[in-house]
């Protein structure tokens, strides 16, 4: 038995990915759950508009962090739809109307709790986009992204690594196929399957959970296509760094876990300390959550989501280019009759 234990330790020591999981994962989970797993939002971005904005602003509890740079002439509901703030107070009505963005579930719950102590005749409270604060309405749009991430990273990387593991990548490398043809040939089927999955999950989500679809279907489709390029790129990147399917799954899981925990999908980004939330802002799923919830629940247009689209496009270009360059290097297409410089 001693020999067996010793052998296992020696193998583990040389398996850097497993060692990373053994050491990094517990620390990562501890830090994330310790700091980020917080459903209570302590500070809610708030706008106060209308004629009596200055007076009302002073009476709001500390929970509502009023954004000073928003003009009092803005439309309160537009500010929520464009996700500028989670709470907008319209002081032009009597009493003032407090609009709460129901698509920001945890912020909305905190806002409701914060306003519960106010006298009934002081403000009217109206929750927009998710009036009953139904969890499924918020989760389903984000889940579409999670499913696309799963297909894009895990399934794609496995498909590519299988080619290497079976030795057929060498065969492809010397066939009269361009590297781009090989890459596209490998990716297009997953792209199509992921598109089908996206449609099925969206339709089922709307049908089974009554999730509203207020915005443009085409805008969501565009966002989905860009997001797919990002996650497919990640899948190809993983495949270039993995020799076996097990390694690919291991790496894909390590990329998937932070996306689930830190994208605002489960825990609100607003409730996380800045030291942790910055990780969320470099994850593609964060921007998908923004886009899908914005379009489906709030009916947000391209203008208010342009920055999220912009970030995803940037990620798609950078990640996909890196993936293609690395995959091309794997295929090692050399010019025939090529001379090496001496």
């Amino acid at each position, binding site marked *: 038995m001693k020999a067996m234990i010793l052998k296992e330790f020696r193998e583990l020591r040389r398996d850097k990915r497993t060692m990373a999981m053994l050491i990094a994962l517990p620390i990562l989970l501890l830090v994330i759950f310790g700091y980020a797993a917080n459903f209570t939002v302590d500070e809610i971005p708030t706008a106060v508009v209308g004629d009596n904005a200055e007076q009302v602003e002073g009476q709001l509890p500390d929970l509502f962090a009023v954004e000073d740079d928003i003009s009092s002439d803005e439309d309160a509901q537009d500010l929520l739809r464009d996700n500028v703030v989670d709470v907008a107070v319209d002081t032009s009505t009597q009493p003032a109307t407090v609009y709460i963005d129901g698509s920001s579930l945890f912020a909305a719950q905190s806002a409701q709790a914060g306003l519960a102590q106010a006298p009934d005749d002081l403000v009217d409270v109206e929750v927009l986009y998710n009036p009953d604060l139904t969890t499924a309405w918020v989760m389903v749009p984000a889940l579409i992204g999670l499913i696309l991430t799963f297909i894009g990273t895990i399934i794609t990387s496995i498909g590519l690594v299988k080619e290497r593991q079976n*030795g057929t990548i*060498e065969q492809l490398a010397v*066939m009269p196929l361009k590297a781009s043809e090989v890459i596209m040939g490998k990716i297009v089927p997953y792209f199509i399957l992921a598109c089908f999955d996206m449609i099925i999950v969206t339709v089922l989500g709307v049908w089974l959970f009554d999730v509203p679809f207020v915005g443009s279907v085409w805008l969501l489709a565009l966002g989905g296509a860009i997001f797919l390029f990002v996650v497919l790129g990640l899948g190809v990147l993983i495949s270039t760094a993995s020799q076996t399917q097990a390694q690919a799954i291991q790496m894909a899981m390590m990329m998937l876990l932070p996306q689930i925990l830190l994208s605002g999908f489960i825990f609100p980004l607003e409730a996380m300390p800045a030291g942790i939330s910055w990780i969320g802002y470099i994850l593609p799923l964060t921007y998908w959550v923004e886009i899908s919830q914005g379009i489906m629940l709030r009916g947000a247009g391209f203008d208010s989501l342009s920055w999220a689209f912009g970030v995803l496009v940037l990620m798609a270009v950078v990640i996909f280019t890196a993936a293609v360059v690395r995959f091309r290097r794997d295929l*090692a297409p050399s010019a*025939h*009759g*090529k*001379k090496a410089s001496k």
Partner: protein
Amino acid sequence: MSRADAGAQRGFEEQWGLHGVTVRYGDTVAIRDIDLRAVPGEVHAVVGGDGAGKTTALRCLAGAVNPSEGEARSPGRRSIGFMPTAAGVWGDLSVDENIAFVGSAQSVTGKDFTQRRGELLEATGLTGATKRLAKQLSGGMRQKLAFSLAMLHRPDLLILDEPSTGVDPVSRIDLWRMISIATAEGAAVVMATTYLDEAQRASRVLALDSGETLIEGAPDEVLTRVPGHVTTVDTPTDRVTAWRRGRVWKQWSPDDPPAGQPRVEDLEDAMVAAGMAKEAAHV
């Protein structure tokens, strides 16, 4: 003019092969200053033990690895047929689907494809297994399928990386028959093998050891160019230069053989003797 004749007319500069090729992976030199000529209508065997550099040399010739130094010259992707060590067949595709995919990738279509498919299936004995998944085939059948895929487009240069390793003797004979057909059609065949009896059947042999050329030439030439000579003895005088082969002992001596005696009996003796001569030179 046949492909073989056309090839024979090419000058050295135009010949396919490796010319002074060195391949490095980081700090590791996989092969160093290797020369290898691929001649139409001939089989060039690359022999050597594990890690000798056979696969790297073949991959370099196929264009899957760039040389760090020297020149790799081959006829272009459309004219290369490559069979990698791991057979290179798609396990989750049937025999027919494998052939169809490679046919499409190599632009072999229509009547030409149907005819070629039939020829190869018959030659390999896979006619009755066209619907079977490649991963369900026996080792020998899988190797024969891989060979068919490499041969499908009638390549001018056929590169085979250990096609007969792990294959039963009957399938080995089938594979050699197919190699003979390929050379008869004018293809230049370069194959790596660990079986010296196979190398003995080749037109030329390149023996590699630790990435360097141990000995190169036609099998008969190689037997006459080995440094020193090998004798069969009952009791070896020096265990360092002796090895057991079957029931007898072989003893290498760096001296030339007595007049009228051959240096070595066969390629196996030649390989071992060349290896010992190399070691002796380094000591």
